[in-house]
């Protein structure tokens, strides 16, 4: 635990010193721009525009950071050979990996929290006061964070056995495919033979289903999200992330570092 905490804290510090959090400036400008612009158009859709724009930005910026920093977590340490001194210490490779993961998720959590505050500030500026239903935004943000953790785990896994460029490609590819995992399950191929259909369905259950984390539509319209949905998404994210991290640890523990 001590080792994981040390690596995580250092990863967080690296992100901060590498000015990763500067993206918040961009987000702030976006929110301010949106608030000003929305104020000039129809009153009825102000909330919709601000919330959907805000949540999309939180998600996209988060994905961007999760993919690029997630892939760099381990590959950068190998490239720069900073890992060599560390692995000579009494620390397991899986501890290092987990510490890196926790550190980046922590960075993303802080970043996302700051963006959420910005989103609420923009919302408050166009429709003060806030309503109780606005709290559902927090649910959406929580689910985005789960999604980001899963993406970080995937990026980490790929970066353990392939080049950073390919790892980015694989992670993004898997994310995009995962957005349609649910659709694959319900596909009714008219010209598909039964075995292909079965194969497609089978694959769809292996793919990370990112639809599980999408509650944008109800939240934008101020509707609630069922507790069971949140609960299922949480368990799904925890399990999937744990399995992916275990795979990453298994690969990384056997890797020769020359």
């Amino acid at each position, binding site marked *: 635990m*001590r*080792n994981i905490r*040390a690596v995580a804290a*250092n990863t967080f*510090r*690296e992100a901060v*010193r*590498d000015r990763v959090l500067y993206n918040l400036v961009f987000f702030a400008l976006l929110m301010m721009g949106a608030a000003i612009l929305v104020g000039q158009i129809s009153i009825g859709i102000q909330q919709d525009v601000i919330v959907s724009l805000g949540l999309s930005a939180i998600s996209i910026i988060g994905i961007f950071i999760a993919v690029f920093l997630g892939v760099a977590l381990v590959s950068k340490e190998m490239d*720069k*050979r*900073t890992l*060599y*001194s*560390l*692995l*000579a*210490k*009494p*620390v*397991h*490779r899986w501890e290092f990996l987990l510490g890196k993961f926790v550190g980046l998720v922590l960075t993303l959590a802080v970043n996302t929290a700051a963006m959420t505050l910005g989103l609420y500030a923009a919302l408050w500026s166009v429709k003060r006061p806030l309503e109780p239903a606005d709290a559902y935004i927090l649910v959406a943000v929580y689910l985005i964070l789960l999604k980001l953790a899963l993406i970080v785990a995937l990026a980490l896994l790929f970066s353990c056995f392939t080049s950073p460029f390919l790892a980015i490609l694989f992670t993004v590819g898997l994310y995009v495919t995962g957005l349609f995992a649910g659709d694959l399950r319900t596909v009714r191929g008219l010209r598909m033979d039964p075995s292909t259909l079965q194969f497609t369905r089978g694959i769809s259950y292996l793919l990370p289903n990112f639809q599980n984390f999408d509650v944008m539509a109800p939240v934008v319209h101020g509707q609630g999200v069922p507790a069971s949905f949140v609960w299922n998404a949480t368990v799904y994210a925890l399990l999937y992330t744990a399995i992916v991290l275990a795979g990453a640890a298994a690969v990384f523990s*056997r890797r*020769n*570092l*020359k």
Partner: protein
Amino acid sequence: MRLIFPTSGGARILGKSINDVSVHGSIGYLPEQPYFYDYLTAHEVLDYFARFHGLTANDRRARVEGMLKKVGLESAKKIQLRKYSKGMLQRVGLAQAILHRPQVVVLDEPMSGLDPLGRREVRDIILELKREGRTVLFSTHVLSDAEMLCDRVGVIVGGKLRGVGMPGELMEIKSHGMEILFELPNEPSNFPLLAKAARTGERYRVQLPEAELYDAFDQLKAAGARISSVTQLKPTLEEFFMNLVEADRAQAAAVEVSGK
């Protein structure tokens, strides 16, 4: 160091398998050309590494401060490593390797990239570790360093271990003879030894078998020479190494000629 894994077989350090992570608490390692997180300061990077050894916060601070002083980085401890020179990074590397007072210290080319002063400091640190009873294993291309510091030397040529032993043992302390360095008074008389001597500046240098030493002394005394030094000629580690390399090359050439 668990960076690469054996295709077969295993290794033990301090009686424990190298796969046992706990043994790393007793090992210090300096990689060749060490790189550290360049966004950290020397103090931060050492504190970070110290965390893996279960030291308390107070202990860590004291150790890190002491170590920075020891490797001569105290004045630069608040500067990010991205602004460090290669020599300074080497010192940070050495500091992190011995921070936790390991029993065994493995140093990969500890003196590369250092100026003469830095090399001397590293040599002093290695000798201090030795005095404290720690085992230091280091690799080097500078054979005089090995000769000066090591109790035991292993020579690797072409990826194979070609000899292990005390430096003297390895080179079979067999004297090659003696060398005498002397100066002559203003008007030198001719004597047999002078014919064999080579002159450099004011000094004469002559090499002779050990058995002729006393005869040479007599001649020098008669000529009124002032003897500056008498040294035994021993093969250096460098010569030993070069002989092995030459032998390898000769063998390779022979194999090539015979078409095997």
